[in-house]
């Protein structure tokens, strides 16, 4: 049976990195290549030994697809392509291609420079890896090779995030990556057409969450900023150069305007140029409405937000500052943090995940005494807050997506099977499809029912229709022919034609059966008895009595001879060709029953 095989790579039951191997119609595709942010050793990389045992990766894998720039989806890519070794194509959307290397470089700097790790990819490796990347547009069908094609769909979530459809022959798989189904101010909701893939692969972690609305999370952010500023404190918001900074600025700007607030908001330099680049990417990627909002405000010409100068950090009074880098691991944001950390009126709001080893990670874990350079201890009295603005799908969203795509099977990764029985039942009940939940390292096989197109020869078609019954769309009709599979094409032809093409002679098979009949009369009288009997019983068939003394029923021949030893017994020879097998055996059993006395 044709099948699709899916193996989530990685050790154990842990969540935290995405890397899925899919085998479809003889093609092998790797979906995402993420780093597990919780580990410091090799456990942070997916377990590639599962694939490498098959030989060279480039020969085995047809392509690698990256859904978006988050490190738990692309963090292991340079390691995979440059250190493990893969030279094939890597597909991702344009914004992902632009942003990935920046995040990877940042991550590399922290891991190598700050933590002194050695078994890690270099800057050059990141560059070499990105050279293998082929950028794709939304809804563009990309031919990976003659049989394999992929298409990206809008996923929402972050800039450039996409869901991918992978098609080989007439089997297809859709991989969602991270997505969200509720549109917000800046990102629309994920969308896919009714592509009816054989399999839809998604994360199970969302399915059990009911998310607080984006608005309420924004509200929480504004409240925290407002309260700090109201009591005269300073708010530090470390941001990535490319990311939510823009969104948060607009949010604050609107709020400041509405509430007529006077405290200054600053945006550190260095952010501006990179942010411009991000802005341009964003505009082409997003929809009309969002484009308008951004075009109206000419990038960083905010009324209330000004460029930062490092001297301002010492100014008295409340203020809000956006500064890079986002994990407080170096640079301006760390400098400002050191100045403000000692005052409990101040607040730092971490807007995203922080890698282990960074100051951001330490303070989020609750550490309040930090060792800085030169053995200096920094006491953190300022309030530490964490804000997650990532848009993810949830229980309701997963059902919506399944409804849109109409897959024949669903596969959820990263869940504990025991704890997912309800979700499995929910999906199976509502959509009548199978729901699979493999553990990491476990391969799931999904059987598909692909349609295989077959050409039928005109001769065969004519012959079948000539037999009589017209084709009825609702009743299957049995047809006899020969299936020829040659050069990836399938043809149905008549047996004679097939033999001709193969250069073989057709053999004729003829069966003869002897039926003994008790009849003392002469042969020709027996023949007459048989003829009358058959004529009476087989009214729909052509029964003939030929001048030479034989009987034909259609093309079946019946002759009678006397038994060599016993004059009272007559031997009927019933002879038919292979094609008339059915009628032949019917006649034989009929005659074996004997002739009626009256004739």
């Amino acid at each position, binding site marked *: 049976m044709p099948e699709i095989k899916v193996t989530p790579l990685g050790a154990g039951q842990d969540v935290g990195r995405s890397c899925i191997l899919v085998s479809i119609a003889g093609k092998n595709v790797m979906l995402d290549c993420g780093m597990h942010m919780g580990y410091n050793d090799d456990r942070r990389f997916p377990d590639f030994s599962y694939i490498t045992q098959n030989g060279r990766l480039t020969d085995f894998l047809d392509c690698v697809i990256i859904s978006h720039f988050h490190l738990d989806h692309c963090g292991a890519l340079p390691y995979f392509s440059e250190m493990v070794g893969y030279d094939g194509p890597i597909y991702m959307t344009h914004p992902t291609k632009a942003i990935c290397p920046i995040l990877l470089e940042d991550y590399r700097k922290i891991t190598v420079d700050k933590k002194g790790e050695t078994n890690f990819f270099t800057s050059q490796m990141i560059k070499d890896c990105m050279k293998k990347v082929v950028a794709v547009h939304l809804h563009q069908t990309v031919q990976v090779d003659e049989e394999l094609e992929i298409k990206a769909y*809008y996923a929402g979530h972050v800039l450039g995030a996409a869901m991918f459809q992978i098609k080989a022959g007439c089997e297809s798989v859709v991989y969602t990556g991270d997505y969200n189904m509720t549109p917000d101010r800046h990102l629309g909701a994920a969308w896919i057409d009714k592509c009816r893939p054989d399999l839809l692969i998604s994360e199970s972690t969302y399915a059990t969450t009911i998310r607080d609305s984006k608005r309420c999370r924004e509200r929480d952010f504004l*409240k925290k900023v407002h309260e700090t500023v109201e009591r005269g404190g300073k708010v530090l918001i470390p941001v990535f150069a490319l990311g939510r900074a823009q969104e948060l600025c607009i949010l604050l700007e609107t709020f400041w305007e509405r509430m007529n607030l006077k405290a200054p908001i600053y945006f550190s330099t260095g952010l501006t140029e990179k942010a411009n680049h991000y802005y341009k990417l964003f505009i082409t990627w997003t929809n009309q409405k969002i484009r308008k909002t951004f075009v109206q405000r000419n990038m960083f010409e905010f009324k209330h937000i000004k460029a930062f100068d490092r001297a301002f950090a010492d100014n008295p009074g409340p203020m809000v500052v956006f500064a890079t880098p986002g994990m407080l691991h170096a640079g301006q944001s760390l400098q400002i943090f050191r100045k403000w950390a000692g005052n409990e009126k101040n607040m730092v709001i971490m807007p995203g995940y922080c890698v282990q080893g960074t100051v951001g990670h330490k303070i989020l874990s609750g550490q309040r005494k930090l060792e800085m350079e030169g053995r200096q201890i920094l006491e953190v009295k300022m309030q530490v807050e964490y804000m997650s603005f990532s848009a993810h799908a949830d229980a309701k969203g997963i059902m919506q997506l399944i409804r849109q795509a109409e897959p024949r099977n669903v596969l959820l990764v990263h869940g504990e099977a025991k704890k997912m029985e309800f979700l499995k039942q929910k999906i199976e009940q509502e959509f009548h499809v199978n729901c699979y939940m493999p553990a990491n390292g476990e391969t799931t096989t999904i059987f598909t029912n692909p349609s295989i197109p077959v050409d039928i020869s005109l001769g065969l078609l004519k012959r079948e229709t000539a037999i009589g019954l017209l084709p009825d769309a609702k009743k299957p009709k049995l047809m006899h022919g020969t299936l020829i599979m040659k050069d990836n094409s399938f043809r149905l032809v008549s047996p004679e034609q097939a033999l001709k093409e193969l250069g073989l002679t057709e053999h004729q098979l003829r069966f003869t059966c002897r039926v003994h009949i008790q009849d003392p009369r002469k042969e020709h009288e027996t023949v007459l008895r048989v003829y009358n009997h058959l004529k009476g019983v087989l009214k729909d068939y052509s029964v003939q009595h030929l001048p030479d003394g034989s009987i034909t029923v259609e093309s079946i021949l019946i002759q009678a001879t006397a038994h060599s030893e016993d004059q009272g017994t007559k031997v009927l020879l019933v002879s038919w060709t292979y094609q008339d097998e059915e009628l032949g055996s019917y006649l034989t059993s009929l005659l074996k029953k004997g002739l009626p006395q009256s004739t």
Partner: protein
Amino acid sequence: MEAVGAGEEEDEDEWLVQSLSLYKDLHTFELQAPTRVIEWARGSRVCVAGYGQSGGQEILQLVPPPTLQAKETQGLCPERDFKVECGGFSNRPVYSLKHVPDTSLLVTSGPPDSSLQVWQVSAEDSDVIKSVSAIPTENGTGQPWAKIATISARAPWVLHGSRLNSVQITEVESRKNVYTAASRNSEELSGLAFLDCNTLLLCCAKGQLCLADVRQPQSPLEAASLPSAPCGERWCMGVGRGPPGSDSSSQPVACLSSGGHLTLTDVRKTSESLAAAKCRVSSPRSGAEFLCVSWAPALEGCLAVSGFDGTVHVYDVRRWDGSGREAEPLFVHKGHAFGGPGGSAGPPLVTVHTWHPQKPRTLLSAASDGSLHVWDWVQPCGKCG
């Protein structure tokens, strides 16, 4: 990929900015299907369930976000989401759901008859809420759905009935009947409650209250009409749960009518009104189906009212003058009118609300558009209470 229309978004933004000063905390969620029950279960879990007419309604047991845990928020609570811990499927709509105290059982009721369904939740082993049994009722077909109350004093009991003459107490595990009320009155019930392990309080939809003693099943129930109850209105009740150990009958019963009248009466003398007021609400649209009134467990003298529109009102009864005139609510939660999926169904109607058992000003409310809100409002004039 289109977002919400511009005008709507502005209204929502406006409300959000206002909400900064109105609420200490605010969460808004969207359930896949609307619920008309929000019940607290074992381990601070919250249960909700669908009430749609088609089969396959979900019963969900949710783990609330850490911000709702009883401890004071520690300043670092990134998680603001509910987690679905367990779920089950009901082939009938769920109109009422109660957790059986000290057990891992839930009891539900709903049309088309007055029977009850019992469910088992075993969160450690699996995430499926299994249907374990049904408690049928005599002549139950065609009767309105049963109102339920549960208690685990002598044994896990469920008090149920749809009419005054069908009130009974059934032992949940054995399904044995332990009490049947003696009444020939077929008045429809709108609510029932255990005041303590021996005393029952029943509320008829037409506005009558009945006290019953479980130890005296033979004495007929006497229904006393609420003082000055206008005719033609539907009534429901809210029974206070004082601090543990206190006499439940010391707290007044609040009764709410579909016309917006609120009456407080002493449980022992239901014919006398202790206080009365009128809520500032328009008449409910859907015929008083979702009327709900409840006392705050941790805020003295406060009760919440909902079911008239998309709002939840909180009143401080100590400010009432007893004249029955319109009272000023202490707080009005308007969130359900904003930010929902919107669309053709019109403005949503709040189907149910409940108080957080420990946090004094935190409530949960659900509406007909599937929204579920958790809000902690700010006391406007700074008086504790």
